């Protein structure tokens, strides 16, 4: 077969330096005396959207310029480069990666698309599948977190990408020519060369594919030894990690007695779970209920928020994010808008009710928490922790929790099934948010309790029907708000047409 150009397609996001990467490749090709061509479709894609760059390099030195294509053709790509994992998936779906021909070089980090981010629960694309598919769909796959390498090298991702491209063995370009191309751009060349070297080394290493494993470690100190002992004694192995974590959280939130209350509650659920045959299901019902109960019992009132915001660990975390250089000072200003309702929450009922009646939109404030004044104002709220049990919300929350737990136990025993109560347990995910979100989610939660759990007739229609009804109501409520356009204003708008 006559010689063919090496075809390179780069899928990138606007603002990642894809243009510069293309320039480096062209410069390196010119240095090698190889005919080369680059095109792109920046347009408005440069404004954070997905975009592509397409290059062809002819591998014969000093050849007369061949006809080089301006558009990539599926099945005819030698090197597919993706600066982010989803873009590699996009290339797969467009057949720009074929097993006969294509080497895939992609970064495994994620930049989430708006469509993923806006979902109130977890809308993330299952990107692990892309990592799995890569070695099967491509001739060769070089995958690792290039963003991380770039940050370590103090440079932008394009330098690491360039290194990985040069190292993957497809480009008819020497390492020296590539490095010279970077060197000749002047500004930031040193950092770019570091990034290039790091990418090159990874691509030429023995195991270029790095499927990330996500390991989350608990940073909390263990709960008191008495609590731990009780967990060991009363609860089976499969629950202990959750219970340890939860108990520690609740001691931190309130006190040991509160954590004991928690364990009492879990014990009752456990009994019902076992009764309903949950052992066969690895006690998933208890485990999920225990997890969600711990979150609910540590509900975010102003005391909690003030406490979290005035911890040494918080200041440390923010400092780390801000990454100050030696001698620089970090000042934190919190954006708060406590409403009368939220203040009423921590007051005893007789004081809370009058306040709730005049509840308004809240008072917006920017509190400089890292100053003495701001810190004291915030810390003072956190110091109210011992009084939390006297607050109007505390009582209210505990009653509701009991109702929810009651429903779980009831459904487990009545239906002799663990899946149905598990659907109910999952409804505690609706305990979330602040202000408006909290209010709306709570309404939905109460509606499920009223209509489906505490309604004798609901179960009469059969466990499967009820399971489905609870799930539907819950998921709809979780996904509500702006994910889909709110139907109400649309209807209203239609009615606004005169004569309609």
């Amino acid at each position, binding site marked *: 077969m*006559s010689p063919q*150009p090496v075809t390179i397609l780069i899928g990138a996001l606007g603002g990642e330096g894809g243009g510069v990467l293309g*320039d480096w490749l*062209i410069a390196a090709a010119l240095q090698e005396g190889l005919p*080369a*061509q680059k*095109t792109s*479709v920046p*347009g*408005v894609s440069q*404004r*954070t*959207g*997905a975009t*592509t760059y397409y290059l062809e390099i002819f591998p014969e030195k000093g050849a007369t310029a061949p006809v080089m294509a*301006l*558009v*990539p053709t599926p*099945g005819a790509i030698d090197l597919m480069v993706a600066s982010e994992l*989803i873009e590699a998936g996009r290339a*797969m*779906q467009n*057949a720009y*990666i074929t097993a*006969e021909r294509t080497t895939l070089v992609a970064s495994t980090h994620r*930049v989430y*698309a708006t469509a993923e981010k*806006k979902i109130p629960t*977890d809308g*993330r*694309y299952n990107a692990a*599948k*892309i990592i799995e598919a890569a070695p*099967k*769909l491509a001739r060769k796959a070089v995958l690792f977190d290039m963003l991380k390498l770039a940050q370590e090298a103090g440079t932008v991702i394009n330098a690491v990408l360039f290194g990985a491209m040069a190292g993957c063995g497809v480009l008819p370009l020497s390492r020296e020519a590539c490095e010279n191309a970077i060197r000749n751009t002047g500004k930031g060349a040193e950092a770019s060369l570091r990034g290039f070297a790091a990418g090159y080394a990874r691509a030429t290493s023995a195991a270029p594919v790095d499927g990330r494993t996500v390991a989350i470690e608990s940073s909390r100190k263990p709960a008191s030894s008495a609590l731990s002992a009780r967990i060991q004694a009363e609860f089976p192995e499969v629950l202990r990690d959750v219970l340890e*974590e939860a108990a520690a959280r609740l001691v931190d939130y309130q006190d040991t007695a509160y954590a004991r209350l928690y364990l009492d509650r879990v014990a009752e659920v456990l009994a019902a779970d076992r009764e309903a045959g949950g052992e066969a299901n690895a006690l998933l019902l208890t485990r999920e209920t225990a997890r969600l109960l711990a979150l609910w019992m540590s509900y975010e009132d102003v005391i909690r928020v003030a406490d979290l915001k005035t911890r040494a660990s918080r*200041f440390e975390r923010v400092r780390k994010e*801000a990454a100050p250089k030696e*001698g*620089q000072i970090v000042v934190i*200003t919190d*954006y*708060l*808008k406590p409403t009368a309702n939220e203040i009423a929450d921590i007051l005893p009922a007789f004081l809370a009710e009058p306040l709730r009646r005049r509840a308004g939109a809240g008072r*917006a404030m920017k509190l400089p*928490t*890292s100053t*003495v004044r701001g*810190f004291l104002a915030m810390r003072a709220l956190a110091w109210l922790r011992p009084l939390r049990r006297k607050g109007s919300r505390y009582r209210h929350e505990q009653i509701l929790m009991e109702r929810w737990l009651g429903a779980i136990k009831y459904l487990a025993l009545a239906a002799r099934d663990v899946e149905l109560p598990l659907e109910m347990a999952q409804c505690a995910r609706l305990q*979330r*948010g602040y*202000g*408006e*979100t909290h209010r709306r989610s709570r309404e939905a939660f109460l509606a499920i309790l009223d209509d489906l759990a505490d309604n004798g007739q609901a179960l009469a229609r059969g466990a499967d029907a009820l399971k489905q009804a609870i799930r539907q109501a819950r998921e709809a409520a979780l996904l509500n708000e*702006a*994910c889909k356009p709110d139907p109400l*204003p649309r209807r*209203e708008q239609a009615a*606004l*047409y005169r004569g309609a």
Partner: protein
Amino acid sequence: MELSFKSEIVKLRLGAGHTFHGEGILAVTKALLQSGVSYVGGYQGAPVSHLMDVLSDAHEYLDELGVHFESCANEAGAAAMLGASINYPLRGAVTWKSVVGTNVASDALSNLSSAGVIGGAVIVIGEDYGEGSSIIQERTHSFAEKSQMWLLDPRPNLPNIVNMVEKAFQLSEASSTPVLLELRIRACHVHGSFETRDNVAPRHSQRNPIRKPAYDPTRIPLPPHIYNQEKHKVEVRLPEALKFIQREKLNDFVEGDLEGVGFILQGGMYNTAIRALQQFGLADAWGKTRVPLYILNVTYPLVPEEIIRFCSGKRAVLVIEEGQPAHIEESINSILRGASLQEPLVIGKDVLPAAGEYTGEAMLNGIGDFLKLSGAAGVDRKAIDAVIDGVSSAKTRAKEMLGAAVPPRPPGFCIGCPERPVFSAIKLIEKEMGGIHVSSDIGCTTFSTLEPFNLGSSVLGYGLSLAAAQAVSPNLDKRVITVMGDGGFWHQGINAVANAVFRNDDGVLVIMNNGYTSATGQQIIASSPNLPQEEGTPISIESTLRGLGVKWLERVPNYQVSEVVEVLRRAMTTTQTGLKVIIADGECMLARQRRERPILAQKVAAGERVVRTRFGIDEDVCTGDRACIRLSGCPSLTIKDNPDPLRTEPVTTINSSCVGCGTCGENAHAAGLCPSFHRIDVIQNPSGWDRFMHGLRRGVLGLLGGAR
């Protein structure tokens, strides 16, 4: 401007015997100078912005040569600028993004092409069609036909493009007709090289001014001249053009040994067609092909003699013509039937897509189908099937392995964009008032129609949003909010404002005063701030509006979301009739960063106190319902794995790309979202007082169990 073009200006000066390396659109710019162009104008827009940008940076060199350059008020202005070539032997070129720009320009273009030109008039068209395009999908070809302007669509390699620019001027002069030179997006951005020639100083300029103003009534569009002008087009100009095209061999004939078949293709389609033939084993890397080709560097007018010559002896030809209507295919049919030829069969949109870009895949499938259907001897049908099946099976496998389609990633507002908080505010006011009809405009503003804002019910053209609301407003019981950028305001919007004031329309107009035509690369406009003196004297939008008689006018700083909400509420509810205009002030963040970053870096280096700001979210306070994301869509406001082991859903976070505009924090306030947001100020080169206070705070907070 977004980019600096210093190194490109050096390339524009290259004389004979050098090699130019660079982008297609810059090669065109150089070719204009080599052609002795006397004046250049246009209106910015992808993909031709760089032609304008580089010339606007090159004013010193243009002065040296005696070339007049002007950024025009809009495309109509640019087209009208070509009027200089009607009466004088001046070569002129203008440029814009098409088809939208051609739409705006078409009044002037009709008049120009009717009057005819003495000096060569060339319009460099950025055909923004297909992938990466952000505009309606139509063809410039139709304009060429209806006004009888010639249309060049050169094979997209730099030497040919440059040659065609020079030929375009000659063709224009030979046939007294303006010539459109069409370049698709990728051709504008293609990086290649060509051998340069010396630039030619124009015959006339301030160095050698024309002493005698011309007056020729036959060039005026009034009867009886309009009738003669039309006749002149068909009786003189068209035949002259056809002669020139043949004589100068503007179209290419490529031999091939396959009998009975051939391709007739637009020049712009050539490289992709060759690639498809290569994949089928019917061409080599240098374009030596087994299928005969007739390549139209001139797509209008078609040369009947050449078409008949190419088609004779063929049973089937494939017309590769991107977009619709299929003007070329229809014309070829008409030429062949007019010559009473029953063969060849003309195939085009039968095998190639009727609409949409001719991507590599579309071309592969279309050419493959044609070759199989043609039954030409020497075509390996199995090889064709193998290539095409390979692509479809790769797709199927990917679909099986990945399952769901990956999420789309459309463009959106940049990090820190000043338009974002305004649309957040509109979303908030919608919560109070119910749905509001938002009339949207062209530019960055259009991104509001996408997620997460979903605001904007129609887009009718650049600067036309106010006019587009005219008949909506009287039919709704609530006021309409019209959004327009400052670029749109100066481009055409100002007319609509005048009319709305005059008619006492009861709408609300929000003008995004961000200082530039931001979407096209931050080119300057009449109201741009911080202009160097030679760029002009800025005109304030506010005083312009007051001069137009706008009574209800308020200005609001964009990033103060609560204030924007209040201003919108006042505008929506005031009993005052007439147009209510809100000028939303906030400079384009890209431009601002570009200006401020080096200054701040200098200050830091000089030891001055500089505060760097970004925002953060407390991961243990966030409960993750994403209301903040749906209200802002900021790229730096994103999600990550939840560090809380009891939580399974991701937590919202702000990544290090944050520029500290504060929209997220202000949104949290304005919408009463949650207490997770905080501002982080990093004081660089802190003063003695800063350090003293810092020490004091650390001491006190440390005692109280807070900071370290």
